[in-house]
């Protein structure tokens, strides 16, 4: 079979996790890049990725990627459009807060270790997913989108009013620290992600340690998602997505599989929510709003619906977008202040003082033009529309096209 990587002689080898040697080597190199090169600042020209704030940002990417994988299973595989992801994330976050959080005068908290609250966050969210499923399974398409939208609003009301659990509206609560203890023992925790220290003889900052922990979790969740996708359950989901009546005729139980998709997706969302809350440290109940759900849908669509690679690409892109826009605006602002040849052009886009009248304003407070945050939102919407109209397969589609071009290079047909 040498030289014919796409010739498979058994279903097992075709359905393997990484069927070809190119993929095996590629994934191995990617893992080395993510786990070793980035944290140790060994990437030439991109050493800054291993510094504090970028490590934090990449940790956030890993967290959101876990949530996006969950939505991928529900929307990408089973084809059920859900706007309720934020609700399940909130459930996970507050489960983590109750089980692992510090006890306060007005707050519930049991101070249990991470290996209790992290799985519990997922399980509670999954259970609620199963409870919601009977309503969600009965309705289809756009009706489902609105039912899940309703979940987000009901969830926000619930979180705001459960003051003992969530800290209440506009004040929020602190979440458990990110550390690994066996069972409430005193002193130094077994693994501490909140202070600098040496692992295996290498000195690592707290951000790098947190990043490594999150990236390992992401790898585990990605492998599980890939295994779901390539086995019986995933094929059942995809058959429901493509033609639900035909799937039912072939013996794929519609309601059961949709409920299962909801449960798995909610588990991922719960874990993602718990990690996000712990990572940020303090969240208000209003944080789990519709926009959060929309962000996850955006990751799926920008990355490319229905593929794990696309989902991960989308998570990276959408999470890094605000930071890139911010840096870009700052760069434009500096250009406008300076006297280079691009200064007039940059000045039109960015307003650096009050009577400037640019599109974006770098000034704090009210001023003409959009703030950076608002510009971010607008750009976000524009990107979504552009991707959907011109590249429905998303970043993954672009990658496929580049790959196919080079596969047959120099013959372009």
């Amino acid at each position: 079979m040498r030289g014919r990587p796409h010739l498979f002689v058994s279903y097992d080898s075709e359905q393997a996790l990484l069927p070809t040697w190119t993929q095996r080597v590629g994934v191995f190199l990617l893992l080395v890049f993510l786990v070793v090169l980035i944290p140790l600042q060994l990437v030439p020209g991109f050493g800054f990725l291993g510094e504090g704030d970028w490590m934090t940002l990449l940790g956030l990417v890993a967290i959101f990627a876990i949530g996006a994988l969950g939505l991928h299973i529900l929307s990408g595989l089973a084809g059920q459009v859900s706007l309720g992801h934020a609700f399940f994330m909130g459930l996970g976050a507050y489960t983590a807060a109750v089980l692992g959080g510090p006890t306060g005068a007005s707050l519930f908290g049991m101070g249990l270790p991470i290996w209790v609250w992290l799985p519990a966050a997922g399980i509670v969210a999954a259970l609620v997913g199963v409870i919601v499923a009977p309503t969600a399974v009965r309705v289809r398409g756009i009706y489902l989108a609105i039912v899940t939208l309703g979940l987000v609003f009901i969830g926000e009301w619930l979180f705001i009013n459960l003051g003992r659990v969530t800290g209440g509206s506009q004040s929020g609560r602190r979440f458990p620290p990110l550390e690994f203890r066996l069972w409430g023992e005193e002193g130094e925790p077994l693994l501490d992600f909140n202070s600098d220290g040496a692992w295996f003889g290498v000195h690592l900052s707290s951000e790098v340690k947190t990043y490594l922990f999150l990236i390992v979790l992401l790898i585990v969740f990605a492998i599980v998602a890939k295994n779901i996708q390539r086995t019986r359950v995933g094929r059942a989901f995809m058959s429901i997505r493509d033609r639900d009546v035909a799937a039912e005729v072939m013996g794929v139980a519609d309601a059961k599989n949709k409920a299962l998709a909801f449960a798995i997706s909610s588990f991922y969302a719960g874990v993602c929510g718990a990690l996000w809350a712990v990572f940020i440290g303090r969240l208000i109940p209003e944080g789990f709003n519709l926009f959060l759900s929309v962000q996850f849908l955006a990751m799926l669509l920008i990355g490319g619906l229905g593929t794990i690679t696309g989902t991960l690409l989308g998570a990276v892109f959408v999470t890094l977008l605000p930071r890139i826009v911010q840096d870009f605006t700052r760069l434009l602002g500096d250009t406008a202040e300076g006297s280079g040849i691009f200064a007039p052009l940059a000045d039109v886009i960015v307003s650096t003082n009050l009577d400037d009248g640019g599109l974006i304003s770098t000034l704090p407070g009210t001023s003409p033009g959009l703030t950076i945050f608002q510009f971010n939102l607008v750009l976000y919407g524009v990107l979504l529309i552009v991707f959907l109209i011109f590249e429905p397969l998303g970043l993954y589609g672009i990658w496929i096209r580049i790959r196919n071009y080079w596969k047959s290079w120099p013959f372009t047909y």
Partner: protein
Amino acid sequence: MELIAVLAQVDAPSAADKFADATASGLALGAIYALLALGLVLIYKATQVLNFAHGALAALGAYLAAYFVVTLNFPGRYLDFLPLTMQWILSGLFAILLTAAVGYIVERLTIQPMIGEPLFAVVMITIALDIIIRTVTNDLIGQATRSLGSPWGTDVVDWGPVTIAKTEIATIVVAFLSFGLIALFFRTRIGVAMRATAFDQEAAMAQGINAGRIFAIAWVIGAALAAVGGIFSSLFPRSGGATVDATAFFAFRALPAVIIGGLDSISGAVLGGFIVGLAEVYAGAYLIGDTWSFLGVGFSRIWPYLIMMIVLLVRPYGLFGTEEVRRV
């Protein structure tokens, strides 16, 4: 709702009075929801797109009205011989026209290329539109709230058992006027073409109907209805008589109205709007006090969603929606 709360403290009305007040107020709120729901259903029926940007368009309409009335005083400044009410209505009409134009542009630029694409993608487009329009509108509105300067102000009329704000009467009148206009529109040549397209797109095109134009017209009317709803949702008893960034979220509560009535039923949307409006006001008026304190704050806002879920459990296509026939 706020009005009811104030009145309840002043002279503690009898149970019948309270019920009458709540009903009148609920009908007014329901009229706004019905307007928004009607626009949503019109767009959905014609183009099979649920417009999540409806709230943003409503907020844009309200902002434009405030801009024309208060900031520019246009066209009132050239027509100062007209009574104030007339001037206000003209400014409002300009705002509605401009919003309809925005609806047209949006449809041509973003919805037209997506015809035939999967539902998921088109829904995401309208969500993206919502983000863009809402952000820009909020930036235009700024930090301060903008008054719409309605000619009726905070006046209240007292009709025996019912006490109702003048703006609420205006809301109901305008809503029913709009319903009548839509009904008349359906009898015109274009209206018949739209109904035909909604019924069977291919057959309509075979008869020589330009479906693309029908889509655009549906969006124009939908955006205009959104603007009317947005303007009246920013008048006196609601949101302090000004447009704020919450106006866009107000329209999300028209979604349960659409679903309760059935996504493709116009009369269902109007009925659903009144059901949601009445339910919200009744919940705000009666589910208060110590007995109901476990419901916490904001229950009347999410209550329509609970009704929606109950309705969907019984009838998955809404009260008047046509059930989808599934064939193998």
